């Protein structure tokens, strides 16, 4: 081992000599990285999971608007829609919201449709009669109900509708299904007292994905009061909700970055007298400035890289083993019920590289700069 190899060996022994200080620094660094990484891991996992679940969404959801608000849509639109070139399968959807005064929570009630029969994320099965329902995990937990248990809803006329739970959505789909109660179409229409010729919205498939925007324009032209919602718009919306740059996540992210910068600034603004003296001694016994900088680079790099990966591991365990206990309530706040969501371990390598360059590089530089200032001074001045 020559030159640089021995300097690296010496850097390690220097870290070991100041183990309490370096351990404290590494602990703070790791916690900050863990916070930042948890945010990135969690938002990315949510986004990926949600976008995967949206894969089966229709190309267009058509809503009827009245006074700028969403209204029930006439099912007779389907006949006109099927005449538009490029339009594929069309289906009305029936759904609405229900406030459950027993649990003080809002549920989303939805009629089972043909596409739902293939949903694999369920324990049990989908409802087949008007007296059956399938519920999301959050609803089941709130009502403390399981498969085959009774489930009642209060109608507007102060009467209750009794249903039997025949299916429960699994935790893996909780992000979309947590507050869901799925009923048969007839059961739901009756419950909400919806007119027979109306649906909540209409789903439309488009044969050629490249023509979705054009088809949407034609629909809007045919029904000026309607609002076609494209799948790409939904994806963009979810993307914005979960994107780490959005809203509260941005605040948390930059809070952690600010804490990290203060930490780095503290390091960059000076080295203690003992370290200064040691640099002076090394210079006096024949070390060049570049040797001192190599030493300080490795000291900083070892602490930063070890802390970075420790932080990453902590974040991984926090997010994917403990379901992001500290962060999930913040991010899942858009939902009426907090889903007991278990994020799947999707990781964006690009984000990790960005985090690495935002944290490790400034930290190492912050250690090298004050040492460089000491190293370019005359040794006897530094040692005084």
């Amino acid at each position, binding site marked *: *081992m*020559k*030159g640089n190899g*021995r*300097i690296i*060996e*010496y850097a390690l*022994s220097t870290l070991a*000599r100041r183990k309490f200080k370096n351990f404290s620094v590494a602990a703070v660094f790791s916690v900050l990285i863990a916070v930042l990484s948890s945010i990135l891991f969690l938002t990315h996992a949510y986004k990926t999971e949600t976008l995967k679940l949206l894969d089966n969404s229709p190309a267009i959801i058509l809503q009827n608007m009245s006074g700028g608000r969403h209204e029930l849509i006439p099912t007779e639109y389907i006949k006109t829609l099927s005449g538009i070139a490029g339009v594929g399968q069309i289906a009305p959807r029936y759904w609405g919201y229900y406030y459950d005064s027993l649990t003080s929570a809002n549920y989303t009630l939805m009629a089972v449709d043909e596409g739902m029969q293939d949903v694999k994320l369920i324990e049990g099965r989908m409802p087949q009669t008007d007296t059956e329902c399938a519920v999301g995990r959050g609803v089941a937990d709130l009502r403390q109900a399981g498969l085959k248990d009774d489930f009642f809803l209060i109608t507007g006329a102060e009467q209750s509708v009794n249903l039997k739970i025949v299916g429960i959505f699994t935790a893996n789909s909780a992000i979309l299904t947590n507050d869901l109660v799925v009923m048969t179409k007839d059961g739901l229409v009756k419950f909400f007292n919806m007119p027979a010729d109306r649906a909540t919205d209409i789903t439309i498939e488009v044969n050629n994905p490249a023509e979705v925007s054009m088809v949407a324009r034609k629909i809007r032209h045919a029904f000026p009061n309607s609002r076609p919602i494209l799948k790409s718009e939904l994806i963009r919306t979810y993307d914005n909700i979960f994107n780490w740059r959005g809203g509260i996540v941005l605040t948390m992210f930059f809070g952690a970055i600010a804490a990290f910068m203060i930490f780095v600034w503290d390091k960059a603004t000076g080295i203690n007298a003992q370290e200064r*003296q*040691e640099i002076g*001694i*090394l*210079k*006096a*016994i*024949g*070390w*060049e*400035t*570049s*040797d001192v900088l*190599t030493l300080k680079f490795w000291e900083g790099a070892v602490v930063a890289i070890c802390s970075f990966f420790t932080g990453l591991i902590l974040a991984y365990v926090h997010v994917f083993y403990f379901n992001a206990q500290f962060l999930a309530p913040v991010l899942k706040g858009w939902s009426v019920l907090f889903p007991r969501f278990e994020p799947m371990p999707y990781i964006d390598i690009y984000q990790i590289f960005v985090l690495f360059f935002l944290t490790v590089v400034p930290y190492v530089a912050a250690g090298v700069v004050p040492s460089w200032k000491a190293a*370019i001074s*005359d*040794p*006897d*001045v530094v*040692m005084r």
Partner: protein
Amino acid sequence: MDAVIRTEGVSKVFNAGLADEVRAIAAVSIEIPRGRITVFKGPSGSGKTTLLGLIGCMSRPTEGKIFVEGKDVAKLPERFLTNVRRKTFGFIFQHFNLIRGLTVRENVMLPLYPTDIDGRQMERRMEEILDKLDLTAKRAVKVEKLSGGQQQRVAIARAMINEPAVILADEPTAHLDTKLSEDFLNIVTTLNIDGKTIVIATHDPLIYDKPYIDNIIEMRDGAVKETAPL
């Protein structure tokens, strides 16, 4: 007489232009003969340590020239100055300036870490020096656990590891009792016999009254008061 180091009108001003400006030495011109023992003698604040630092390339003069092996080093860029320091000088500091937490072995080998000297050669050189200075048994001991005399021997070993032509010692007996001071002088004379040039800054009569001191440069108030080749 062959001079290994020569200064011409060297001055050193600290905090130049500030309210607390200090002229540590002024217009000093001296010669350090090769292979001899030279002592800078003088009271505290006379400029001995500053002059020792200047001739050892530890700092640069404000004015004047310093010739080491005939080459003016006063204006050399930092990199070349380090090279001169590494190849020509070994330093023994007043407070030893050993690195706490490191063993005797590590402290002694420290000057060689950035060099390309082979590891086995480094070890061999270190073992020889430790043996000479009776430190072999202490090689794995952390330096802060050693006595003052032992620490000084470690500092001497570290100064010798680069095989320098000149050993510079700043107040080497300031923290030693008479017996240890004598031990130090014995080591120094041995080094001198081996051909090393020795320069000692001291105000300890135990050193400058010794008959084997070849050259005494007496300093006062930053200037050379008297040069006395003996």
